[in-house]
């Protein structure tokens, strides 16, 4: 039986987080009422003309610089012509032969091995409007709000060979775009979407197999699932003596199946030509250099710093850097004096949990990094136990007060009074004679039970270290 290799290239669409659209001053805010963000320009009314949003050019150049691309000093916009009701001008303003960024790469890691994935190009374009269909009435509705929202299309080399690698590449792109602040990359809102080009070939064969393109995948899960579906399908076709047809495919995430949309023969001729309503875009080298200078620390460098400077594990560094809001919070908390490991733990477990509980996003932690640093200090100097620390954290989500004020108001200060602890320990031993006997006969785990009893009796406030020592002393 032949062993096959999968070859994958991605086309990633990133919606840029500019305040206004690419060619007019309409707002880009997601979720606004239908048809409230439109004007003669994005509606494509006769006579209206586009004017490029400088911010889009800047964001596109930054995206290229952050992905090791060459940013062009001279590029232009082109028209891609096709008819569809969601495209008011019957052409999309995009870039054809002179994209703003070319020849980049990113290092990814998947299944424990690293590799470099090439980026062919990044270009700027406008999004189309949104159509919705009512199956009952047979009517279609058009929403102009998305028309002219700026997009980047990032086209990779066919350098990935597995779903895991494709996912890693997409994750890398997501964290970079978020880190440099050009996109919020919310897949559920469609601000990060991906087309997968995939072919298979017998291992050792140099020539590529015939590829298919699965369009518009909007979650990591659908990327992974559609890839495993499509590679299996193609291998099955070849194994049974069939031929792969070059075609565009669609993925049904609910059913977990892909299906053919149109074959290459039916593909449109887009009749690209230079957009005559816009002048070429000139980016002087000094401007490009200044943009490069302005880039924040990129994820790969940050991950490395978290490992070497903060002493975090590779997995922890990855998890934190993947969410720039958390990573920024971490850096600021550490700058305010927090111990890196302790701060990292809060940002990986307690804080994400509480954000979710409170329906908040990653950017909406309701207290400052300095507050987190204060909380950690209070745990580390034994003012409170770590379990009390978790309760203080929860309080920080519901009230505007410092950890100290919360502890005081709730009477949560850790008890380090020897007399009190001694009394509670004596009571616990008296109430649980069997456990005491077990410990004495060498069953070490009985001690944990007794510690728990003391902690419960003191409302979690007893200093656990002192409780431990007192128990050992009395039971020895």
């Amino acid at each position, binding site marked *: 039986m032949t062993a096959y290799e999968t070859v994958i290239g991605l086309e990633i669409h990133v919606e840029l987080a500019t305040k206004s659209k690419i060619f007019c001053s309409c707002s880009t805010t997601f979720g606004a009422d239908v048809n409230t963000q439109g004007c003669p320009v994005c509606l494509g009314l006769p006579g*209206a003309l586009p004017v490029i949003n400088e911010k889009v050019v800047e964001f596109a150049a930054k995206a290229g610089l952050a992905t090791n691309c060459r940013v062009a000093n001279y590029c232009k916009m082109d028209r891609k*012509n096709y008819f569809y009701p969601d495209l008011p001008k019957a052409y999309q303003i995009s870039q054809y032969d002179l994209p703003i960024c070319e020849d980049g790469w990113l290092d990814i890691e998947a299944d424990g091995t690293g590799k470099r994935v090439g980026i062919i190009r990044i270009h700027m374009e406008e999004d189309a409007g949104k159509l919705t269909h009512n199956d009952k009435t047979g009517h279609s509705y058009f929403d102009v709000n998305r028309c002219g929202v700026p997009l980047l299309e990032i086209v990779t080399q066919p350098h990935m060979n597995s779903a895991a690698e494709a996912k890693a590449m997409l994750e890398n792109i997501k964290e970079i775009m978020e880190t440099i602040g050009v996109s919020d990359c919310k897949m559920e809102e469609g601000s990060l979407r991906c087309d997968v080009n995939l072919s298979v070939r017998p291992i050792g064969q140099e020539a590529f197999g015939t590829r298919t393109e699965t369009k518009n995948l909007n979650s990591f899960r659908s990327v992974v699932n559609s890839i495993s579906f499509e590679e299996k399908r193609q291998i099955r076709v070849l194994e049974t003596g069939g031929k792969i047809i070059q075609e565009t495919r669609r993925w049904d995430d609910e059913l977990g199946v892909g299906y053919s949309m149109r074959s290459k023969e039916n593909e449109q001729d887009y009749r690209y030509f230079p957009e005559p309503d816009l002048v070429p875009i000139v980016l002087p080298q000094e401007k490009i250099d200044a943009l490069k200078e302005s880039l924040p620390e990129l994820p790969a460098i940050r991950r490395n710093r978290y490992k070497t400077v903060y002493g975090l594990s590779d997995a922890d560094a990855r998890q934190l850097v993947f969410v720039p809001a958390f990573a920024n919070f971490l850096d600021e908390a550490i700058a305010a004096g927090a111990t890196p490991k302790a701060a990292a733990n809060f940002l990986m477990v307690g804080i994400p949990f509480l954000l979710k509980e409170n329906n908040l996003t990653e950017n909406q932690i309701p207290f400052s990094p300095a507050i987190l640093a204060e909380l950690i200090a209070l745990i580390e100097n034994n003012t409170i136990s770590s379990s009390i620390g978790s309760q203080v954290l929860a309080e920080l989500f519901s009230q505007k007060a410092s950890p100290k004020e919360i502890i005081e108001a709730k009477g949560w200060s850790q008890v380090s009074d020897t007399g009190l602890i001694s009394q509670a320990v004596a009571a616990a031993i008296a109430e649980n004679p069997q456990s005491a006997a077990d410990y004495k006969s060498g069953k070490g785990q009985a001690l944990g039970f007794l510690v728990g009893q003391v902690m419960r009796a003191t409302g979690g406030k007893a200093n656990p270290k002192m409780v431990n020592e007192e128990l050992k002393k009395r039971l020895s």
Partner: protein
Amino acid sequence: MQLYEMTALALQKVIKEKQASIPEVVQSQLKRIESTDPKIGAYISTFPEEAMAEAQKQQKILEAGGTLPLLGGLPIAIKDNICTKDMLTTCASKMLYNFCPPYDATVISKLKEAGAIIVGKTNMDEFAMGSSTEHSAFHLTKNPWDTSRVPGGSSGGSAAAVAASLAPLALGSDTGGSIRQPAAFCGVVGLKPTYGTVSRYGLIAYASSLDQIGPFAKDVTDCALLYSVISGPDPKDSTSVMPKPFNQKANLEGNVKGLKIGLAKEYLANGLSFANRQALAKAQAILTEAGAEFVEVSLPLTQYNVPVYYIISCAEASSNLGRYDGIKYGFRAENAESLKDLYEKTRSQGFGAEVQRRILLGTYVLSSGYYDAYYKKALQVRTLVCQDFAAAFTKCNMLLAPTTPNSPWQFGEKSANPVDMYLEDIFTVSTNIAGLPGISVPVAQDETGLPVGLQLIGPAFGEENLFKAAYVLEQKGDRLGLLPRL
């Protein structure tokens, strides 16, 4: 002389000296339109009530001691491919028969600010595609000097309106000669400005890289006045550019001493009518007499101008006109069975034959496999045409050229073979290809008394010199102050 027959400058004086009120001026104009436009067909729509209301408003301001802006009280006609808020803007097409733009073109905002009073929207070749206004979906416009002949096109309505005293001023658009050629045919002055000096925002596009809005007037002075109002950079048009504002007054003292004027030998080749040759000789004599110096230059790519123009303009048009699909506004065909069917029926029924011809031609030259041979090649020739002009302008300040090879033709005379009509554009298209300014000014008449206009072509932003020389030609030519009998 009737109020409606006066030039803009004369009307300004009349209003200023209180010999007539603004409502009287506008009323006179509206009555003239009512009585005479049925013979000419210059307008697609008129706005008598709105115009009178505006006239009365301005008169009140004037009587309250306010000062009138530059074009205060002056009636103006607007080509029907320039968007006017809440006023029908049809492009003389069935496709936009009911289209009322929700916004004003930049030139319209400027005119309104300057006090001009829009009396109507003028007829044109559908989507500005044509040289005779015969391609209007609505009606013919007749040449006021001989109503059996065409007024030229595509801005035939605007040129005829000014010639027939249906408006002292008008705006047109020029993509390949659409201002200058009808100006020449109707015996009025028309300027195609340097590409970028007049905002295209709100001009319904035919060919974006060639289109330019420009003024029509009864004489050179009025033409310069209107250009001074509509020109200037516009942040809404990325292709707009104007290094310094145009000052119309500084350019009309008629001094052409020391100016070097080029004559391109390729323009004097066969195919130029006798009347045009005579007019050229006359103009050369006038300008020489006034102190200008003539030099011979060469524009060797002249024979490629028309094909290059039709490839580029049709390519852009095929894309620009894609939006008329029956989905959002304008005409929608009935009984469509599918989306594709709706597109096909709407576009087949909504566009006239000439528009469909140019869309097909443009689609073809942009198609994969043909792009390099046609569109790309045309762009390369375009670069060379610009270089030819640049070389010529190292030897002279401007060129004197015919506007048209022939006099206005009879209706239907050139309809059988579209290429016959395309070839009439030979002297006008190259300025659009190179983005240069050109002005057509009436100089003489042909054997039958029809006006003959000549063209002055300048380097980019060379309008000042063009107006100087045009003024001399007008003052010393045979056509000053002549009005058709209607």
